């Protein structure tokens, strides 16, 4: 089952079944669909609205009401002064940690995935199926199975608690997915073009850079978005392997929200949660199509 594109809008199988004259049915249908939209949007709305309220107003009760007095103090606090663990630094340094971790990890895993996909489709060798199978299977392992040896290995490499250690972890456990994306994409790329270029004396890398790469735009976007979302949202590896100056955003947010000292500043928690969600949400709004395509490729193997 290969997903050439996500969800073609044009043709509805249900459309053929729709009968005319039952307008009330259509109205009920629209109401149901809109109610579900409200259901999915509600938590985000509640977080946003309450992040602009003073704490007293939140305690007062109505979580759906718009703020009586708007304040951006919770945002300022979440970003630069809130207590995270033992330090009152706000989330800013952790946001930066996450970026420093995500950018190299996404780039390296995407480049390797592209090369792997290229080899596995256009330069097949005996045993290529086994190699691909092992890479694919690695996408699904429960990461608990690698936590103990990975902690040891990072220690041996002198990378324990560093951002580079986390980069390596995310590259290794993202390789299966990026390889899968590019392998499926290049599978559909006409091999004749590659063979013709070979006849003309073009080598391995020349063919890749001149012929395949120029038409790889969409799948590069899919791979980058997928890796970005997954690595930004990761919690387990961050919680297991990060140290003071490499803790990523998700872990910092959890520390902020679950810290048991002092008053629970819900408005600050919400501002922090939205800050943590913002990068992936922006990516989703800008290029949701590609995000869905990555999801589907991850679900429906090719």
């Amino acid at each position: 089952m290969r997903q050439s594109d996500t969800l073609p809008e044009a043709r509805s199988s249900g459309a053929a079944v729709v009968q005319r004259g039952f307008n009330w049915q259509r109205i009920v249908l629209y109401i149901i669909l809109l109610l579900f939209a409200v259901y999915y949007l509600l938590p985000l709305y509640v977080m946003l609205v309450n992040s602009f309220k003073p704490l007293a107003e939140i305690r007062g009760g109505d979580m759906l009401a718009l703020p009586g007095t708007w304040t951006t103090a919770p945002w300022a606090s979440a970003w630069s002064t809130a207590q995270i663990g033992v330090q009152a630094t706000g989330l800013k340094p952790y946001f930066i940690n996450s970026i420093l971790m995500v950018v190299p990890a996404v780039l390296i895993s995407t480049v390797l995935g592209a090369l792997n996909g290229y080899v596995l489709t256009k330069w097949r060798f005996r045993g290529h199926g086994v190699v691909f199978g092992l890479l694919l299977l690695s996408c699904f392992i429960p990461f608990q199975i690698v936590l103990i040896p990975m902690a040891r290995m990072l220690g041996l490499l002198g990378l324990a608690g560093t951002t580079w250690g986390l980069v390596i972890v995310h590259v290794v456990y993202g390789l299966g997915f990026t390889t899968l994306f590019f392998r499926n994409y290049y599978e559909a790329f006409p091999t004749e073009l590659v063979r013709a270029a070979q006849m003309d004396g073009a080598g391995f890398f020349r063919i890749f850079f001149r012929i395949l790469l120029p038409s790889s735009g969409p799948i590069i976007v899919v791979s980058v978005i997928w890796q970005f979302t997954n690595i930004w949202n990761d919690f387990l590896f961050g919680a297991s392997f990060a140290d003071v100056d490499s803790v990523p955003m998700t872990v910092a947010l959890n520390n902020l929200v679950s810290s048991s000292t002092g008053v629970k500043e819900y408005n600050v928690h919400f501002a922090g949660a939205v800050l943590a969600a913002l990068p992936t949400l922006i990516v989703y709004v800008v290029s949701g199509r590609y995000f869905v395509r990555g999801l589907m490729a991850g679900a429906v193997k090719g």
Partner: protein
Amino acid sequence: MKETLQSWLPRLVLAPSFLLILFFVYGFILYTGYLSMSDSRMLPSYGFVGLDNYEKLWKLRHWTGSLKNLAVFGTLYIAICSVLGLLLAIFLDQKIRIEGMLRPIYLYPMALSFIVTGTAWKWFLDPGIGLEQTMHQWGWESFHFDWIKSRTHAIYTVVMAAVWQSSGFVMAMFLAGLRGVDPDIIRAAEIDGASRARIYWRIIIPMMRPVFLSAFVVLAHLAIKSYDLVVALTGGGPGKATELPATFMYSYTFTRNLMGIGASSAIIMLIMIFSIIVPYLYAELKTDRAS
């Protein structure tokens, strides 16, 4: 010389990735497998103890409890996501004019971190401040909803948050499946006088069997891996009411310093996931080759 380099180049390019995976995935699985049969406690130790850790593991209420929780959570999560996803997909597939606006709204939770989802729902479900409080404010004084604080019901709140996060994704899978149905089949059934509900029930939904299977595999493996959401939503509590194998493994390995038992629980998680995923991938790759 150049010839041989050219012929080896592809394998040389693939080699680093393959070796990384071989070592960091499969090598590590073997290592954890050995630790699960060792006397490791706070640090890895290599004294062989056979299956002792597994025997101890299955005698732990904490472990069997987390498996029961996983069974409840997993069953409801998969069932509700599948039904809801299918229904939403069918509804959206009726030439809905605002489909382009609704679809991204149904799907965006999938782009969020489970920690963010957990933070939002924890507050929403907190009887002191969230939904219950709001209902009281609105005048419904007797409204009572404190599942998140209840030992018997907290696991259902994990289901609620997880369904919110993933059901839109299942909807997208079913929608893609529905768009692949040949409209001629439906037209033919209509000519035979079949009702709309009957056409869906007898013809279209049975055709969605491969999507049900994909959704099951994806959701089941997500359920077994679930960790972040529980940490952010309930922290495994109240008591141990929402502990899952993933949280069990973490606390036994890193906070209780019983690494041997932690490793054996990780191996059981791996076996659960592989027994679902390996046959599926095998079948998928096989049909792929045939086509």
